[in-house]
């Protein structure tokens, strides 16, 4: 799993995750993403490269969203890959994140 973080200034930050968002990388993910949420005003996480996601990976997104909301910041998930969509769907959590989801035909 790799996370690329690009701060485009003005407190806006774009992270894109590729590979497996699984328990094996959950701790690393927490360490990379959460400081990003703390630092920035607006965070956008690109999920297009996520090949696999399990509950641990999902929890990190949940945590990031919670922290962001608590601090009145915005956190968006964009370009969901099929693997992430499936998880959001199974957990019935698409609306919690409230991001527009593009369903591929």
């Amino acid at each position, binding site marked *: 799993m790799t996370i690329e973080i690009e701060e485009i200034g003005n407190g806006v930050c774009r992270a894109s995750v590729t590979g497996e968002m699984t328990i094996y990388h959950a*701790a690393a993910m927490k360490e990379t993403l959460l400081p990003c949420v703390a630092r920035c005003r607006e965070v956008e996480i690109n999920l297009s490269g996520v090949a696999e996601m*399990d509950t*641990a990976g999902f*929890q990190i997104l949940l*945590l990031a969203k919670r*922290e962001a909301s608590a601090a009145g910041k915005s956190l968006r998930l964009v370009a969901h890959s099929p693997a992430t969509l499936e998880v959001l769907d199974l957990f*019935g959590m698409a609306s919690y994140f409230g991001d527009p989801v593009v369903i591929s035909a």
Partner: protein
Amino acid sequence: MDKDMEQALQTFLVESRELLQAMEVALLDLESDPNNKDAIAAVFRAAHTIKGSAGLFGLDAIVAFAHVAENLLEKVRSGNIAITGDLIAVLLLAGDHIGALVDQTVERRGEADAPTLLAGEALARRLRAFLTHSAMPMEHESILQSSGGGPVGRDSWHISLRFGHDVLKDGMDPLSFIRYLGTLGKIVSIVTLPDAMPPLADMDAECCYLGFEIEFKSDADKTTIEKVFEFVRDECNLRILPPHSRLEEFIRLINELPEDNTRLGEILTNSGVVTPQERDNMLLCQSMRAATMESEQHDAPTVPPLGEILVQEGMVQKELVDAALEKQKQAREHKAQESKYLRVHADKLDELINLVGELVIIGASAGLQAKRLRNRALLETTSTLARLVDEIRDGTLKLRMVQIGETFNRFNRVVRDVGRELGKEIGLEIGGGETELDKSVVEKIGDPLMHLVRNAMDHGIESAELRLSRGKPAKGTVRLNACHESGSIVIEVSDDGGGLKREKILAKALEKGLISANQTLSDREVYALIFEAGFSTAEAVTNISGRGVGMDVVRSNIEALRGTVEIDSREAVGTTIRIRLPLTLAIIDGFMMGVGNAIYIAPLDMVMECRQLTPAERQDTRGHNYIDLRGSVLPFIRLREHFHCQGKLGKRENVVVVQYAGQKAGLVVDELMGEFQTVIKPLGKIFGHLKGISGSTILGSGEVALILDVPALIQSLISAEC
């Protein structure tokens, strides 16, 4: 793949093999006793557990197939489908198929190949055919009667799930359970509750903090739904409310859950289980109940068992309580089993045995030093040490010992299948299953045994008509037997069939040029000819045996284990093939003998007695090589001559009487040096052609001693006599 995952998969592999083995045994039991409830349960358990574990690894092909088998078995277990020979045959095939899938997807890390999948589909169709043919219509469970409170909600189940923190670390993912639940019915709505997630700093990324409230529509019964979560049962908080549950139950649910009551009420309303009005009623009732509960606690006369209360309240169905009790019992038994066995990697054992080998050598060296120093205290210590080392050695070697019974039991299936294929009725008898031998030997003996058993069934056992005309029962018998005999294990494969035809073998051997026409051979030598490469007297080549490949492979396999094989046979009565193998391949008790400057060791188990050669006998035996041992002839070998030893002749000569496979022989040596723990070190390849030496060992003094290959020496004596 990650290392932990790898290990988990390995465990899955081992467990599924064991389960499939258990399933096979149970199915064979069922064949003889269709009413054996335990066996039915064992078969079901195997299919069910494999399905569950495979689901956790996302091995969909296995899950899909095992699911079909499980459905059928469920009906069999409840008595809706009768157990027939056909059913068992299909189930046996289903077990094989699951085994093949496990091999292909786990062991070889690939996808199941197309032919296997096709075969699987065909099998699944056959399994389903049994399901549809079971004419008994399944009665739908009557809707639970409600009393008081009135039924609320709709026709869906309500499942409350709170996962324990450690489920993820234990390799279980709530996702897979929900995914699997989805295969049993329709998830109407699901609410994920992350409330248990602690503040950022305390949140462990590898812990699970999630809870779920699920509305689930399905025809499955409560047990089935509960079984979805069987693997996390101990680690999660699970509550299942049947459709049309009473208001009270929802109140209880809300009370018991950790989250805020009002919030839960809202979730229930949102998912459509209860109407807002009902919700308000509930919250009201709930506070009243809490008040009455407190007063009740003070004067409770008799307290019925928890299970009973639950049933009375309509909270759980009766069979569910029974199932739970049964499960607890199983869990206890399982725990007891677990404490009895410990899985250890074979490499660790081998390492330990190597170390013990070194310990034995260095112990002998210490003993020698002590003797040289003549320090009495030291001598005493080293002798105690030697005894302890002895025990450690025995104990360590015993760790590797396994009973041969398990290997034998596998042949039940082989005999059954091959018997059907050949159209012969053949039974298998097993004896001495508790005989123990080294694990590495057990692993390597399976193939040769398989060959011998198939051979016995194909060529040995005659057709039913012929058997009846010979006055034998129509059903043939193959026997597998094992026992210990002077330091080796003897495994016999016998049949009560037609026996070997001496004349036919001789004729064939002549034709192949294996023997010359004027040779006279003993029966055993004639029979031994069938172990020559390319030898087959079968008139017809069947797909089971008869191609003449194999018997020579059997012999070379057994010889590679330092074993021997021999045949006893009587025409029209039967054949017995006897395999002799050394008990262990690493350390033996040896008997040391000196010849000139060299030291030789014979396995102590083979040494019968020792005696000095009298001067008269020494004079007498110059010309020939046998002596009179209490009236019987004892052939012997002078090791000095046999190995062309240098060094001056000793004053005395001793004869060591050794025995192997019922044959006695004498070894004439100069000096008897007594017992010695011998760590067998294999000889290099250059010495491969050496006859009469099987290995070497290092003595305490650092000298090298050669280990005698007693069977080969005896053999050479016998052939020299002919």
